[in-house]
C-alpha cells in the first residue's frame, strides 16, 4: 500500500490538488496534539466540577467548545455511566468516532468484530476487554449513525476525593470513554510518575 498511496499523493500533488505540507500538518496534529488526553481532561473536569458536568451532559458541544482545545467539537454528546447504567459507543455502519476529543479511533473500534457484536452481544465484547459488569447493570449502546458523536463519562473511581483535575485525568483511559473499559483505580497508576 505504501507505493500505491505514494503514487496517489504524487498525482494529487503534481496536479495541484493537495499541498504535502498541509498533509504533514494534519498527520502531526493527530499524532501529537489531538488524542484521548483531551477527553481525559474533560472527564476529569466533570468529576471535579459538578457545574461543568451539568453543562457537559446538557450540551457537550458548548461545554467542551468553551475549553478551547485544538479541534472544536461539533454535535458532541456526553453520556454518563452510573451504578445502574453502562454506556458503550459504536458505529456499526462505518467508524464514526469523536475525533476532536479522543483522536483517531483504534483498530479494534473500526474492526468487523466490534462493529458487528457491540449491539447484539455487548457483554461478550466487554469480556474481551476484561470488563465484567454486574448482571443487573443496564447496558446502553449508542450506534453513531449520524454526525452526532458520543463520549462516555465513566464513573469516578473510589479513593480519589480531593484529587486535582490533572491527577484525575490520569485515571481516564480511552477505552473508558468509549465504554469498553472503566476508569482506572488509584492503585493502577500508583507506580507511574506523576505527569
Amino acid at each position: 500500500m505504501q507505493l500505491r498511496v505514494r503514487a496517489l499523493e504524487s498525482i494529487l500533488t503534481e496536479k495541484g490538488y493537495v499541498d504535502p505540507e498541509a498533509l504533514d500538518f494534519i498527520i502531526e496534529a493527530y499524532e501529537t496534539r489531538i488524542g484521548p488526553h483531551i477527553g481525559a481532561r474533560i472527564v476529569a473536569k466533570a468529576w471535579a466540577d459538578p457545574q461543568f458536568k451539568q453543562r457537559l451532559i446538557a450540551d457537550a458541544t458548548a461545554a467542551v467548545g468553551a475549553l478551547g482545545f485544538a479541534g472544536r467539537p461539533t454535535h458532541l454528546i456526553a453520556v454518563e455511566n452510573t451504578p445502574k447504567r453502562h454506556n458503550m459507543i459504536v458505529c456499526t455502519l462505518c467508524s464514526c468516532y469523536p475525533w476532536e476529543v479522543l483522536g483517531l479511533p483504534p483498530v479494534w473500534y473500526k474492526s468487523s468484530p466490534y462493529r458487528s457484536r457491540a449491539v447484539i452481544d455487548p457483554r461478550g465484547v466487554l469480556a474481551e476487554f476484561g470488563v465484567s459488569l454486574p448482571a443487573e447493570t443496564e447496558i446502553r449502546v449508542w450506534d453513531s449513525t449520524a454526525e452526532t458523536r458520543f463520549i462516555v463519562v465513566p464513573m469516578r473511581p473510589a479513593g480519589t476525593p480531593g484529587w486535582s483535575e490533572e491527577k484525575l485525568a490520569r485515571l481516564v483511559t480511552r477505552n473508558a470513554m468509549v465504554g469498553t473499559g472503566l476508569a482506572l483505580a488509584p492503585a493502577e497508576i500508583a507506580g507511574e510518575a506523576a505527569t
Partner: protein
Amino acid sequence: MNGVHDMGGMHGFGAVAPERDEPVFHAPWEGRVLAMNRAMGSLGLWNIDIGRFSRESLPPDVYLSSSYYRRWTLGLEDLVVRYGLVGADELAAGRALHPAAPGTRKLAAADAPKLLARGSYERPAASPARFKTGDRVRTKNMHPAGHTRLPRYVRGHAGVVECVRGCHVFPDAVAAGRGEEAHWLYTVVFDGRELWGEAGDPTLEVSVEAWEPYLEPA
C-alpha cells in the same frame, strides 16, 4: 444499500482484539491517506456521505478483507476518478499525465488547522419536528439500493424517541445527488429484545440516530 458494511448483529467475525500500546498509525502511508482524504474532502466536491457511499460500494469481499485505511485509499481513488480530477490511466501509471481539472483549488497549508474541526451538519428547519421526546415510533422496513444510515438491524422495529437533535443534512439525499434535503434527526432507543428476540440480553438498550423519513408513528 443492504451492504456488508451494515454489520450490526452479524456473527462470524471472531473476537475483538485490542492492541496494547497501539500507535496512531501502523505505517506512514496510513497517515498520508487519512490526510489526503481530509484535504480532498475540504474542496467541497463531495461530502462525508458521498465518501462513505464510495467505500460501501467496494466489492463486498474487498471491503471485508481490507483494513480501514486501505478502504480509504480505494474510496479516494474512486472519488478522484469519478469527479474527473484524476484519470484512471494516471492511477494505473502512478503519475500525472494530464493537466488538472479547471477551476479546482487546493487546501493551502495555512488553512489546514481549520480541518481539525468539523463543520456543522445542522440546518434551518423548513417545518416543525413531527415527533417529540417520548413518542413511540417504528422504523420503516426500507431497503434502498442507495446510501442510507438506517441499519438493517433496527428496520421495522418499535422504539422511543429519546431526544430531538435538530434538523440535519440527510445522507440518503446527498449520496443520491439530491442535495442536502435536511430533516429532523432523533435519538431513537430500542429494547434489546425488540431487536434480537427473546434470547436477547434483557439488560440491553440500543439507540440509533434516525432521520425523520426513517420513522413512522408506532
